[in-house]
């Protein structure tokens, strides 16, 4: 696995159906199939509960916890959208996610190019330090960061929070890009340099265009991380109009502890953006999260 982890983007996932002629007892096959079916049901149950409940009225839910909605009502969704700024929250989350990913990728690409292809003192040390920062839990930095950000007036600003997220994402971005950049033949770079390209030009015109796969991976893993984060957003964006989706729903759910169908409609709505991304980019999600294991 280490090899795959080390060069995740470079190796395509092996998904061939080879090795078909395996011999297994019928008992083994049946129990494995049974296990998988149970696992799928357990994995799906909460999503099914969420969607079914969101289509019931509170009265219906009180009578019947598990049955199908009868009749289906979309009133909960209408109420959620009309009374709560879900779209604003999503927009805030999107701005923060995309902003952090762009900043982190730019900073990491510059650094990773130098680490992978240039000679300078402290190169290995920088890579080791940066890599080991992947294991530092963000909560450890939160207290001093908050004090520092209060002091310099960055609490409650997009820029401040984007900086924090970008910082947290960067060790992984550097790690992934260094690994990939090292697989790009030096001859390509040297040829461009002889043709008069600047080092920055080499990065933007030769290396990055070749790095589509790791860049997509980075984009997805890092986007998911920022989109799903609660702690940083909760602390650093106290202003109501800057709330992210995760902070929004944690406030929202607290107000509707008794109205579970409404609460479920909110959750279902909040799941939509990532579900769409997952369905469209499933391959990259799986490949990227396996590569990005460290982001948890």
């Amino acid at each position: 696995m280490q090899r795959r982890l080390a060069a995740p983007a470079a190796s395509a996932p092996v998904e061939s159906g080879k090795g078909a002629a395996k011999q297994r007892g019928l008992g083994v096959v049946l129990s494995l199939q049974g296990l998988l079916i149970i696992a799928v049901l357990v994995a799906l149950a909460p999503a099914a509960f969420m969607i079914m409940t969101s289509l019931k009225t509170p009265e219906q839910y009180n009578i019947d916890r598990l049955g199908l909605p009868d009749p289906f009502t979309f009133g909960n969704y209408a109420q959620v959208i009309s009374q709560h700024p879900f779209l604003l929250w999503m927009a805030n989350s999107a701005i923060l996610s995309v902003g952090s990913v762009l900043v982190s990728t730019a900073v990491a690409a510059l650094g990773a190019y130098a680490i992978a292809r240039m000679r300078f003192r402290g190169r290995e040390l920088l890579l080791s330090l940066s890599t080991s920062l992947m294991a530092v839990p963000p909560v450890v930095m939160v207290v001093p960061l908050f004090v520092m950000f209060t002091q310099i007036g960055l609490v409650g600003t997009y820029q401040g929070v984007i900086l924090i997220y970008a910082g947290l994402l960067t060790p992984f971005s550097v790690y992934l890009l260094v690994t990939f950049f090292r697989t790009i033949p030096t001859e390509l770079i040297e040829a461009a340099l002889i043709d008069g390209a600047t080092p920055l030009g080499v990065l933007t015109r030769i290396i990055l265009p070749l790095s589509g796969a790791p860049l997509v991976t980075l984009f997805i893993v890092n986007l998911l991380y920022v989109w799903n984060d609660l702690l940083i957003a909760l602390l650093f964006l106290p202003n109501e109009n800057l709330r992210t989706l995760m902070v929004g729903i944690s406030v929202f759910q607290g107000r509707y502890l008794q109205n579970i169908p409404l609460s479920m409609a909110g959750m279902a709505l909040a799941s939509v953006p990532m579900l769409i991304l997952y369905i469209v980019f499933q391959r990259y999600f799986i490949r990227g999260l396996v590569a990005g294991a460290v982001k948890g």
Partner: protein
Amino acid sequence: MVRTRPLTPYLFIAPLVGLLVFIFGYPLARVFDFSTRRIRGFDGPSVGFANFEALFADPVFWLAVRHNLQLLLAIIPLLLLSLLLAIALYERLGGWRIFRTIVFLPYILAIPIVAVVLRNMFQLNGPINTVLRSVGLEGLALDWLGDADIALWTVMAMIIWRESAFGVVLFLSRLLSLNEELAESAQLDGANWWQRTLYIVIPQLRGVIEFYLVLSLITLLAAVFSYVYIVPGRGGPGNATMILELYIYNWAFDKRLPGMGAAVSVVLFLVTIVFMVLMFRLRRQAAAEEVG
């Protein structure tokens, strides 16, 4: 390596170093400094180890430590469950790709969303207890989140539900890259499915299993804030699901004593250093394989 002017590499790494110092380096240095001060606002007088003394005298701190340690137990079901499911998927029985897509679904849903949905399912009169009662398991219909003795176990079950999805995909992708000749020749030698799985397939997963263990330990120690913040409601009932992350949050932001929060952070950081070393060694191994 490409030849450059001597200063060029430093220009390229400058933003990286700057960002890492700003978000990791400086705060990590400050957190040690803060832990020895009584901070009001931005700064405060040095109090030596008084914060740590207060911390170690606080029963809630030890409760949080105990809960984090208890959550570490989840590592065993996490590993076994994801290994078992990955191996089942690896057999490529009918529809395995769809199964894989669905099994990974819990990991796509954000923890706060998962937490809200599962909390409702685990209510005293929620759907889980409804099912248990309807199949005659009245005695198992517990107050999953309201009962202080059970709440943390319930949270643990939720963590296992979501985090094992990742393990499955991790192990499966390693399995799919294995060389199958070994297992095939063992089959020719008469080894049955169990023998092949236990003695041929699983040993080849050693590296990825180690990696997953380290990763899960870090998650269970320091990345479960969203679960306990939402599920039973801020570490409740009482302090039944208090964990170190939430404990830091409470000191620093509810009670507004950043010095105390920093002291807890220092403790948590020192523990994670152990894991950082482990992670670093795994990575080095990976790098060595890459070159070799």
